[in-house]
């Protein structure tokens, strides 16, 4: 009986000692934890094109910086022998290359592979990181060309404005002035066609030389009382507003103006 107890005790003690000896904190050796690989998820646009290249450049630079840090901590990348690069690749070698990439997945050797992950736009241009500067220069040239083109367009537009009308800001300034002067006769029916067109002849300072109602004959027709009231209110507005806020340049363009007074929008409420 006592003997069995001693044997059992001995086995238990042995077990405790073995367990204590094998505990990790007692081990002085550092544990080799696998490296944490950071993966940046970037949304790839449905359509990739050149204008996104500057963005890609930034991303590439970031990745480069990260790579540098990683490379310094980890083992240096494998040196690829020149002979192999120059030699015509055989099928076996192709397999080896694939293997090589597989092995180095956690320790990327080149940036190109990452770039492919980031975006697929303009592979040709982005593939070589050294050519980024050139790419930027190219984009600069392109943007400059674009600006030039835009300038050309606006100049053309200006030319056309000379013949077709006032610019939006000029028209808005004139409208805003007349809005303030025109007291709309509130008794007019909103469901009738009451459009009064007034032709003005202006001085360069915006004062009126002559004002003329284009449908003047309608004013004196029987049953056109509403039109007459509206026409008179429009004339009053024009006279009250003078000198009109006209552009400081291009007198030839606006020396004759036609104002179309339409109160329907206001009368409908």
């Amino acid at each position, binding site marked *: 009986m006592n003997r069995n107890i001693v044997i059992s005790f001995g086995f238990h003690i042995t077990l405790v000692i073995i367990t204590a000896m094998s505990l990790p904190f007692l081990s002085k050796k550092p544990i080799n934890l696998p490296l944490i690989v950071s993966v940046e998820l970037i949304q790839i646009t449905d359509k990739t094109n050149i204008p996104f290249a500057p963005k890609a450049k930034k991303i590439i630079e970031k990745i480069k910086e990260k790579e540098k840090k990683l490379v310094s901590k980890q083992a240096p990348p494998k040196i690829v022998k020149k002979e192999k690069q120059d030699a015509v690749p055989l099928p076996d070698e192709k397999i080896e290359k694939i293997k090589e990439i597989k092995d180095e997945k956690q320790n990327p050797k080149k940036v190109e592979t990452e770039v492919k992950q980031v975006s697929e736009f303009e592979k040709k241009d982005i593939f070589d990181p050294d050519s980024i500067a050139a790419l930027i220069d190219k984009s600069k040239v392109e943007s400059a060309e674009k600006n030039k083109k835009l300038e050309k367009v606006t100049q053309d537009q200006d030319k056309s404005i000379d013949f077709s009308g006032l610019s939006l800001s000029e028209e808005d300034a004139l409208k805003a002035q007349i809005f303030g*002067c025109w*007291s*709309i006769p*509130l008794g007019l029916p909103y469901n009738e066609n009451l459009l009064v067109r007034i032709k003005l002849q202006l001085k360069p300072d915006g004062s009126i030389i002559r004002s003329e109602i284009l449908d003047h004959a309608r004013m004196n027709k029987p049953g056109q009382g509403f039109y007459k009231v509206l026409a008179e209110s429009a004339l009053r507005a024009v*006279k009250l507003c003078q000198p009109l806020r006209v552009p400081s340049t291009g007198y030839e363009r606006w020396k*004759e*103006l036609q104002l179309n007074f339409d109160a*329907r*929008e*206001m009368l409908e409420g």
Partner: protein
Amino acid sequence: MLLRYLLLLLLFLLPVKAFALIEVNITRGNLNPLPVAVSPLSIDDNSKNGLEKILKTKNLGAEISIVVENNLKQSGLFNPLNKDAFLQKPEIANLKPRFEDWNLIKAQALITGKVTLVDEKLRVEFRLWDVLAGKEIMALAFTTVPSNWRRVGHIITDKVYERLTGEKGYFDTRIIYVSEEGPKTNRIKKLAIMDQDGFNNKFLTLGNELVLTPRFSPTNQMVTYLSYFRNLPRVYLLDIETGMQEVVGDFPGMTFAPRFSPDGKKIIMSFAKDGNSDVYTMDLENRIVERITNHPSIDTSPSYSPNGKYICFNSDRSGYQQIYVMDNNGKNVKRISFGKGIYGTPVWSPRGDLIAFTKLHKGKFYIGVMRTDGTGERLLTENFYQEAPSWSPNGRVLIFYRETKTNSKGEGFSAKLWSIDLTGYNEKMVETVTDASDPSWSSLLNN
């Protein structure tokens, strides 16, 4: 010949720089009241003295101009300028205004005139000037008995209003209403009539019987209203000129909510019997009664459209009191009010485009308008208790009555007439001699 061709060729070759005419669309303006100068009407000394003897007024020219000025101001569409700023004397301004002077005080229109007494008759001429255009745009003269001078002022306002706004005025009109006096439990109600500006008030009944819902005839000076006959509410007809009154029809139950048809030949009203009320009409010439609605619900407050083809009324046939429109023979009944709350007292606008109503929602009363198909509901004014809108003859202004407490503690009780225009901004109290309710606006007197 060759020379001609050469000239023609030269014409084509000449560099021509053509500019297209610039067009600017003006679709907005301001809704500010139009600044108007109402110059006192000039009056010579003889006429002044003569009129002073007859009317006991010192300067009738100035008095008439004040009537015009107040009317224009009340409309909310005009801003009569302060007379102290006027530079030109009335007698000179009436002959030939110095437009620069009137322009200086920002007047856009000017009213001048002259008052004379000729053979005991008052002659008033007036001119309306467009200050900015520098021309006369209207000139009229009226001759009447001197006691009619206020009416002349109203007629001048109507003419000016029509010329400057495009729609007919509503100043030469009268308002019939129920005058109320005494405590709420023992209220004395009399029929009363006054000018639209509150002057020339007259009582038409003595107050022995309760009177309610007076309505003007659209064509003449007849009034239909509700009063009690043998303790039963009955529809009455009253001729304002002669003072004659009569009961409309001999119905076995009570009749109420009367209103004239647009031609003034029929009266449309509610007739209640055994707890059910329906809409009936009665021809005033041959006294033939016609039943228009036939429904177990309460159909009341009927009102004709201005062309007489349709009738709007309120009914609780859907469970709650709502507004309905039907043909004048009672067919094609269609509900038009679908908003939250209870709708009542629908009145068709004289212009035909809108229906005014009273709405009760969450304990508050609203006066509003909607299109005749029920769309575009707009609530113009809200209060503790208000109802019974009535249209001005031009369909621009509504008059209604409002009950309020007489002090801030919520004590006392007062009923007054108020007017509001379709914009909902120009709300004004109409002065009455006593408390007032149930107003009805007449058509223009000078039609």
